[in-house]
């Protein structure tokens, strides 16, 4: 997927540079992942392994010769991504990102406006990170065999990786497979509830999901994970609840509660390895209680989605009991 998906969201000057840059980027054989705009700084396109600075004529050049992003470029992007509707983007500005149709995300950084110690909104946006979403249709049956086959049904599973290593993509693929079922690995269909606090899993836009999450998946969009997990358990009777980026104490408590209610949990978490995960004070109690039975560790070692290990976790036992898969490329 190239830069074309971003056409609608940029002003004329920026888009002119980017459309010319597309031809040069194709030669690098790498997919653009991010377009970075910072007022007064060079226009930057980021791929999986490199940063490219783009000149006004579209050439990939040194930073000194690159197109300098203007304030008007950022304000045009802001007007377009908010659809000229600042009132509708209040929550997005507060959270620092806007979700676009197709699941693309625009990260924003400006000046935080505080109210009683909390961020009310952001003003004077100075940096924009346009993150291009991809929806790979990879075959993950080899991973499902390792993770999902269990005499007690689908095990509580944690996907662990550093940022930009493909954990949300893998979560999405797992949700789809669990929802539709995977006859090739004798996995029956499940009712899946997705609590998508940052609109990243489903990429919901005006009530419609940008990504296919399967036929039996219900999505609760932009809802805090703690409240969302409780709501899902009460109202949608899911077999499995999926959440992204576990991290808060309250979220961990909600996960434990849902697990006690007989709902299986599928979650992602930032960490470099299981060792690092156990060092996270918020997550450690969750591992101590033995809620999660499997952990899938991803890295960027061979590009995003490099499957490092699948761990079996037990009550307070985090050590690797067998590296079931190693060095496979997943999503």
């Amino acid at each position: 997927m190239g830069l074309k998906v971003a056409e609608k969201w940029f002003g004329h000057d920026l888009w002119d540079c980017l459309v010319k840059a597309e031809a040069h980027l194709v030669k690098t054989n790498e997919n653009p992942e991010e377009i970075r705009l910072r007022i007064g700084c060079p226009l930057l396109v980021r791929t999986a392994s490199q940063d490219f600075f783009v000149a006004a004529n579209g050439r990939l050049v040194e930073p000194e010769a690159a197109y300098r992003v203007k304030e008007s470029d950022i304000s045009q992007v802001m007007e377009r991504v908010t659809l000229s509707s600042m009132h509708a983007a209040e929550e997005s500005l507060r959270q620092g990102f806007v979700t676009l149709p197709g699941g693309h995300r625009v990260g924003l950084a400006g000046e935080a406006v505080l109210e009683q110690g909390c961020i009310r909104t952001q003003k004077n946006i100075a940096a924009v990170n346009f993150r291009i979403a991809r929806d790979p249709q990879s075959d993950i049956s080899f991973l499902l065999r390792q993770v999902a086959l269990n005499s007690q049904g689908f095990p509580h599973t944690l996907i662990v990786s550093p940022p930009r290593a493909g954990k949300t993509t893998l979560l999405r693929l797992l949700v789809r497979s669990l929802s539709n079922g995977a006859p090739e690995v004798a996995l029956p269909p499940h009712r899946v509830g997705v609590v998508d606090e940052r609109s990243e899993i489903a990429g919901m836009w005006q009530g419609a999901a940008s990504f296919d999450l399967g036929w039996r998946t219900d999505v609760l969009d932009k809802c805090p994970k703690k409240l969302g997990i409780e709501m899902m358990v009460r109202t949608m009777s899911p077999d499995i609840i999926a959440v992204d980026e576990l991290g808060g104490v309250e979220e961990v408590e909600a996960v434990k509660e849902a697990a006690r209610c007989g709902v299986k949990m599928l979650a992602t978490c930032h960490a470099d390895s299981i060792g690092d995960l156990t060092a996270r004070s918020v997550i450690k109690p969750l591992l101590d209680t033995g809620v999660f039975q499997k952990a899938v560790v991803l890295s960027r070692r061979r590009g995003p989605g490099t499957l490092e290990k699948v761990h079996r976790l037990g009550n307070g036992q985090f050590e690797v009991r067998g590296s079931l898969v190693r060095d496979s490329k997943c999503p």
Partner: protein
Amino acid sequence: MALIRYAVIIIGLGWLGLWRASTIRKRLKQLELFEHALSLLDTEIFWGMTPLPVAFRRLQRIGFPWGNFFLSVAEGLEAGGQIEETWREVVAAQKSYFCLTAEDWELVNRLGGCAGRSDRHEQHKQLMLIRNQIQGTEETQRVDAERQARMWSYFGFLGGIAVVIAIL
């Protein structure tokens, strides 16, 4: 032959008078509809936090000519246009479908200048302000408009007769 010519003059001027009278009545109706549209827009913005293109699309239900007007603005925004510029373009393109005066357009354009530019509380205030101004215009015009419309419906025919008498 002369009789036919005189009849054409009377009918022609009479028709012009009726057309003017209907324009005056339509203006009031269109202002009422615009005010109704603003109240629906206020609900969409304040309670629904609906993005403008979606909110404008929903205003289609108020019917011609405002429904088409808001639909065109929504389409412009969806195509990547900026609100103020898109609003101005749609006003220029669709002005002929309306019977509004220059003062009325000033009020309409005020919405184009402020819509979507602030948080929902501020938007609510702006919309209320424009609605109050429209209601004020409507109230002062309601009595006058009916009187003027009646006057123009007679005026056309009487003017036609006067022209015929002058010719004779």
